[in-house]
């Protein structure tokens, strides 16, 4: 089977979407021809667009931006829709990850993907909403399915089985197997403060307000 994976994270370095796809691909390789395209990094030329259109399965992995699909991915989805899919049996799956702890907040983006799927007359497979996305890189040495990665492992397993058998499944929302209150503290301690320090900023500077006059753009 031909599978196209579309990574919609616009991050220049490694993204959580990349990491999730590294977990997922071995679960679905099984003699399948898999192509992964990051639409921010790969030029989506005719050959690649044709590959997507001829795939039996399309998997989208992307971050949640402002409660919905990121702008550049939205543009790409519109571009794909304009080309019109000829094979209406293609199954569409998606994995959306977000910054907040609750994977459920990805609900709207997954519903938007269902609407896209319906406008293209394709078949909806399944959506997975993964919470606390910025925490996953910290857990990359813990095997999938264990400790804090337990829920993610289970969800990706279920998703992969559905992909391999071209089945649909209910939307899954997960958060790490880790307390929310701890992540709330840790996200400042391990993510924002160290990153600010790397840029030579004191913690207090993170609260800066911009006060110059507004210009009419």
């Amino acid at each position, binding site marked *: 089977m031909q599978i196209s994976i579309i990574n919609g994270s616009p991050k220049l370095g490694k993204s959580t979407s990349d990491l999730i796809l590294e977990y997922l691909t071995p679960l679905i390789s099984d003699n399948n021809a898999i192509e992964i395209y990051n639409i921010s990094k790969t030029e989506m030329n005719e050959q690649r667009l044709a590959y997507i259109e001829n795939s039996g399965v399309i998997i989208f992995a992307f971050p949640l931006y402002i409660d919905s699909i990121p702008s550049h991915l939205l543009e790409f989805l519109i571009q794909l829709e304009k080309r019109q899919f000829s094979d209406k049996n293609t199954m569409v799956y998606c994995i959306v990850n977000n910054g907040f702890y609750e994977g459920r907040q990805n609900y709207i983006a997954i519903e938007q993907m269902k609407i896209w799927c319906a406008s293209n007359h394709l078949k909806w497979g399944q959506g997975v909403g993964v919470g606390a996305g910025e925490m996953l890189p910290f857990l990359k040495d813990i095997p999938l399915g264990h400790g804090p990665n337990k829920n993610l492992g289970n969800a990706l397993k279920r998703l992969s089985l559905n992909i391999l058998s071209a089945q649909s499944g209910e939307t899954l929302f997960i958060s790490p197997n880790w307390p929310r209150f701890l992540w709330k503290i840790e996200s400042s301690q391990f993510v924002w403060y160290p990153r600010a320090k790397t840029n030579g900023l004191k913690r207090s500077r993170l609260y800066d307000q911009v*006060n110059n006059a507004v210009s009419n753009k």
Partner: protein
Amino acid sequence: MIYPQIDDGDVVISENSAIRNCIGCFGCWIKTPGKCVLKDGYDNMGHIFSQADNVIIISRCCYGGYSPFVKNVLDRSISFLLPFFQTKNNETHHKKRYKNTFKFIVHFYGENITSQETDIAHSLIKANAVNLHANDSKVFFYHSFDEIAKGVQL
């Protein structure tokens, strides 16, 4: 004229020049707090929101959400918030960078907006309003841009 009167203090953001898409670097939180690092004229959205009593959006409805341009402007606006988390109604959201709150009003147009799309659009605007700490939110639908051009509901 869609809005009967554009006052001196009103800021209109439309696609007058090319906009780059957010690259997810969080520079607006950890490098130049409050400002986007992409200098293309759309880097000051957080500050613009901090001055607003009303944020009014007019957008084509795409898959129950905003058009790519409008979405791009919103994606480029997270400098309005702080990176830090707070829990509201048992859900995580970001803390405020500024004191102000605004009313969030969205006008969506499109020829074939389905009921599925209006449902999602309602959920989206509600979620955005919570995340942006808006004091009120409203969403309206129109069959075409021409219908909006005749005048919007306020």
